[in-house]
């Protein structure tokens, strides 16, 4: 089922290739689709570098990351693919929002890096490329992608393994009596780490309480400082303290 349906998903993008009149039966469609998604990802990645508008950059980044998710789906790693969509593509959404906010100011409307910046970025990028190419070329023999290898029991065994149980455990290990351990400890470490980050972020972003009343409050006649906090009851004529401007985006930030 997994094999067949993976092809049926990918079949949607086959149509343009059909028109070219190639010897269709001889083509490894898996490779064709791989090349399609890979080139989409690369083209939009170049687009991110070349664009000078923040919002367009974010859009190209979304397309590039979505094409990468397509590669994961093609490889049968459905869970990773959905994760890619959820985390990276969804995370770029926040980037986009910041882009929209920043472009309200002049220096960010169009980003034009200086020559030194370009040289530095080119140096960093090309050295990374050299490292990656060296790693890729050092592989002895590449396996051609085949549809027969795509069996995708990804999510449930993964989840069970993170809870410390390997349901997909190697049969050889069971034969010798060795228990296949899962990844409960790393999972818990990462969870606690994320929790700490979350608490820290909430602490930093919380609404700061004023120690002293603002001059406008002091001047107002009907001021009553509540014990323990500085909640101030304003006269009706004054605007409320947390104005609608901050409520526009998140309903209260600092």
């Amino acid at each position, binding site marked *: 089922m997994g094999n067949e349906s993976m*092809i049926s998903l990918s*079949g949607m993008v086959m149509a343009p290739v059909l028109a070219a009149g190639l010897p269709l039966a001889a083509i490894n469609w898996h490779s064709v689709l791989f090349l399609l998604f890979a080139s989409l990802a690369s083209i939009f990645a170049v687009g991110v570098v070349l664009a000078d508008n923040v919002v367009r950059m974010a859009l190209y980044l979304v397309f590039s990351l979505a094409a990468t998710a397509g590669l994961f789906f093609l490889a049968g790693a459905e869970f990773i693919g959905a994760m890619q*969509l959820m985390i990276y593509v969804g995370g770029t*959404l926040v980037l*986009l*929002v910041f882009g929209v906010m920043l472009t309200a100011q002049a220096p960010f409307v169009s980003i034009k890096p200086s020559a030194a910046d370009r040289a530095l970025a080119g140096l960093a990028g090309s050295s990374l490329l050299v490292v990656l190419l060296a790693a890729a070329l050092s592989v002895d023999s590449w396996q051609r992608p085949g549809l027969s290898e795509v069996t*995708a029991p990804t999510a449930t065994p993964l989840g069970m393994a993170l809870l410390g149980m390997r349901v997909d455990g190697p049969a050889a290990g069971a034969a010798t009596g060795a228990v296949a351990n899962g990844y409960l400890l790393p999972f818990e470490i990462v969870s606690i780490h994320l929790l700490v980050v979350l608490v820290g972020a909430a602490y930093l972003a919380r609404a700061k309480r004023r120690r002293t009343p603002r001059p406008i409050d002091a001047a107002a006649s009907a001021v009553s400082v509540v014990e323990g906090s500085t909640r101030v009851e304003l006269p009706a004529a004054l605007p409320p303290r947390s104005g609608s401007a901050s409520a526009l985006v998140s*309903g209260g930030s600092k």
Partner: protein
Amino acid sequence: MAAFLINSVGLPEWLAWTITALVAAALILNVIAGGALAFIWAERKIAARIQDRLGPTRTGGRFGWLQSLADGIKLLAKEDLMPDGADGMLFRIAPYVSFCASFCAFIALPFAFDFVGQRLNVGVFFVIAVLGLEVFGVILAGYASASKWSLFGAMREAAQVVSYEVPLGMCVVVPVMLAGSMDLVTIAEKQGGWLTNWYLFHDPFTFVIFWVYVTCAVASVNRAPFDLAEAESELVAGFHTEYSGLRWSFFFMAEYASMFLVSALAAILFMGGWNGPVPLAALAGLSEGTGDTAHYLVRVVGLANLLTKATLGVLFMMWIRWTLPRLRIDQVMTTCLKYCTPIAAAMFAGAMLWQLAFPGGLIPGMARPAGEIREGWLEGPGGQSAPVVVPSVDGTVAKAVR
């Protein structure tokens, strides 16, 4: 279907797969487009009745049932305008981004047993992830329109959708936990049998969390009372202020498609999917699993079941829309962060403890035994079970594995 084309018709493999994929894509597209036509008409009629009017009565004879088609022709004939200051490329692409996100989510949505574009092992997760991408189109539209009303609407939508993803995800986790699978087909199969097997009636906690899901779903598809992104009384028309004609209608197709999608998802996660309240097929001795005609008919009945439930969900959303007033943005945020999220978290813990206390349900023998239904990958080739332990939720897993 591809196997049928290869074996019986004798098509080459690549052509068979292409045709299968095209048929699936065309069917999904028709569900979206045809559904939008029907729902727009229904929305007009329901709105009219709630406001003590008649709504469309003349177009197409009785009940104005051709009104949506007339609307469509009007939209086709409209001029495609773009503001001077707009970012042309982004402005043009935004409606398609919204629509594609909705369309892609349908790929993993099962309409009946085995009636699914692409059965994904992580179906729930995929649908939620892709549904969240619809907001991209809205933000792009708001930014590219070069209009402050559009930008206000887009920023509101961004804040709202990002916030409501949290409780929505928590609600979805509960059926996933009960079924022990993220595969939508498996989740629906596990609720087969009588009405009492639906996760809605599994325990009090799932009943409560269903309503949290409904709230979050309405908010995440941007419908009233959470439609702050278009808020016509404050923002003219919000993010689509500057759009007209066909591009505007793409936003609406995406909205109606998303409504249908979250309703169908609610039906699958909580209301038994394509299983009717009474297991008629099982009583008649039929099953949906194998391939002959009678079993195929069972699936078609299941399809009707699911479509009915999803349509009822959409009608419920319309009822809500024309009944409740729009919330303010701070009220929307309060609803999400102070009510929906804590309630969902507490109900999640409650459902977990309930499952621990009553693994077989309150009335013994009513629930289907765990382990009877397996995820697709556990079935080896030729229908033989692979030699692995079936993870189930009744606490026997650890013992079995060790």
